[in-house]
């Protein structure tokens, strides 16, 4: 590439910038619409019609479609991505994924992240960080919590490339 790689991503979110206990409130929220829920549920061939059959769900206790949990937490992790994973070489894994509340079309989701662990990786140009991501809705009710392990570039090796 003619542009420096480091010019395309943030300056304040390399491995060296994260320490255990840091909690970030991410700047953007997003309103869940059929655009996200129905499109992604169908793209990944999830066949549970509670996520895409409004008529059937009118007869349920929810009275409407419920957003698919995988989309809910993908959106929360997405909202957290620029700050926590923009300089990731790779995402390594997830753990302790829990969904606390249903999400409906029209709900707005916001994300927070806490640094749980910071450690060296088996390569010197990067380190491993574990984030706990939290999701809340427009009523400030927690809807999601889950941990994501990422391999983050070290500024010392990548900051000027």
């Amino acid at each position, binding site marked *: *590439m003619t542009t420096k*790689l480091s010019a*395309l*991503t943030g300056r304040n979110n390399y491995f060296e910038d994260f320490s255990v206990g840091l909690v970030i409130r991410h700047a*953007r929220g*997003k309103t869940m619409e059929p*655009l*996200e829920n129905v*499109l*992604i*549920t169908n*793209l*990944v*061939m*999830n*066949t*549970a019609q509670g996520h895409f059959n409004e008529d059937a769900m009118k007869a349920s206790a929810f009275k409407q479609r419920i957003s698919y*949990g*995988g*989309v809910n937490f*993908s*959106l929360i*992790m*997405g*909202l957290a*991505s*620029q700050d926590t*994973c*923009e*300089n*990731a*070489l*790779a*995402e*390594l*894994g*997830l*753990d*302790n*994924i*829990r*969904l606390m509340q249903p999400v409906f079309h029209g709900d707005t989701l916001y994300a927070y992240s806490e640094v749980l662990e910071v450690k060296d990786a088996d390569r010197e140009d990067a380190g491993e960080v574990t984030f706990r991501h939290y999701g809340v809705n427009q009523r400030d009710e927690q809807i999601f919590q*889950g941990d994501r392990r990422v391999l983050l570039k070290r500024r010392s090796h990548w900051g000027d490339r």
Partner: protein
Amino acid sequence: MADDFRSKAVLWPKGHLYEDFSVGQVMNHHWGRTILESDTVLFTTLTLSFNPIYSNRAFAKAHGHPDIVVNPLFVFNTVLGLSVEDCSEIGGPFVGVGKLTYHEPVYPGDTITSRSTTVACRLSQSNPSSGIVTWHTEGLNQDGRRVIDFERSNLVRRRHPEGRSA
């Protein structure tokens, strides 16, 4: 006549209930999915998952990848999605996912299949009409290599809540 087809119709049901699961059973899930560039870029942009390795081919190549990297959460959702009819379509709500590992990157054009092994079945104390089932689910690429694995638990409705046999 409309009444004619309705009165003759037989429902072909979908999905499984608690009694259909037993520890050790292996389910090779239906269909498979070739992941296209449009799938992962659409998913990445809709979820605001901003890391250029998921959206900028030149950037991804400069990091040693042959192409843009498929967003790992899209891989996860696809592997889980393919397992839904066998595991959780009619049973009940999601309880949790854990112990998830991404074993290697997926690139546009790769074909993913999904299989699950039932690892635990237990009745719910608080909800006698349901049990909790846990599966170990694996996503495999076209070469048979494992690209992801995780454990998932769901509440699953019982066919015979009082324990009566059919």
